[in-house]
């Protein structure tokens, strides 16, 4: 059951087949006996898919995101070996950077609040960490990657016919990300090394 789910993701992503077509084929051959793990990121724009879901199938599969819930027993390292490739890495980094930003930005706001209103030493200590250049690189990576990948997801949601090129969109995404990040990296590192 699980293997079929993974193969399906493989077919959709790598062979660039229409997900609706694949689901219809599965539906035909399996007659509802299968619990497919399908979650299509843009499923609100796919009425057909929902017609199928409403028939009692349980589709839970991350379209460009490998479903790594514990149900499927996919560990982090298995995940890296898995053939998800670019889309899966983007999904993983999107989540990691999202969690990172919630923690870092949340702590930063809290620290500013403490030091601004109460002159607290804790707040100043936390803010001192934020001003270190190592930290600035990390947080800028998170923000920039999350922003660009999020824009890619929005574009794919608005124009689902582009989903067949989703591997290419990952390459475009890196092509946009790397120059922007490199410029900031050079500036931050050179400033950090010169000690200003």
């Amino acid at each position: 059951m699980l293997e079929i789910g993974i193969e399906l993701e493989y077919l959709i992503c790598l062979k660039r087949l229409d997900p609706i077509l694949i689901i219809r084929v599965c539906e035909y051959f399996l007659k509802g006996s299968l619990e497919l793990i399908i979650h299509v990121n843009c499923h609100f724009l796919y009425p057909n898919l929902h017609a199928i879901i409403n028939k009692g199938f349980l589709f839970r599969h991350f379209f460009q995101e490998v479903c790594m819930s514990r149900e499927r027993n996919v560990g982090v390292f298995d995940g890296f070996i898995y053939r998800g490739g670019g889309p899966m890495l983007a999904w993983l980094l999107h989540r990691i950077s999202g969690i990172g930003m919630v923690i870092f930005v949340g702590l930063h706001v809290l620290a500013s609040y403490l030091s601004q209103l109460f002159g607290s030493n804790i707040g100043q200590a936390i803010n001192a960490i934020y001003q270190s250049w190592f930290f600035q690189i990390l947080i800028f990576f998170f923000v920039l990657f999350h922003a660009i990948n999020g824009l890619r997801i929005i574009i794919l949601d608005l124009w689902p016919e582009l989903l067949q090129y989703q591997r290419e969109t990952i390459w475009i995404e890196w092509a946009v990300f790397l120059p922007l990040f490199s410029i900031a990296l050079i500036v931050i590192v050179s400033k950090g090394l010169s000690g200003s």
Partner: protein
Amino acid sequence: MLSRPAPQRAFTFEYLMWLFIRISALGLYLLVIIGVIAALLMGARTQMDIATLIRWTFFPNPNHVINSNIPDLDLGWVGLLWQVVQGFAVFLGVTHGFNGLRNILEDFIGNKGLRLALRLALFSLWVFMIYVATVLVLTS
């Protein structure tokens, strides 16, 4: 181990949040563009380094540029306009972030009671962060 079922195609909470995530992301993009263009118009190119410009871009708070070479912050860098922009950034950013956190956690939680408890906890944290950030905006 149950994870959550696929959301229904209806006017549900999940659908609203799905929509909100996308719209708030575009809203944050807009705020970033407003921030960086305004900063450049106000002379950021000669008055601050790129790290400071980036800090101002993501959150146009006067405390983010106070240590740069700006002679007088009152000339455009503080004021009601920027407080409104920061208010939008706070609301969209905090809500977007906490909903993302909820999404990640609920992918792994099938138990309804546990999910409700988690939602209550995240909701309180969301209210708290909105309060803290709003006070920060109003007092800076």
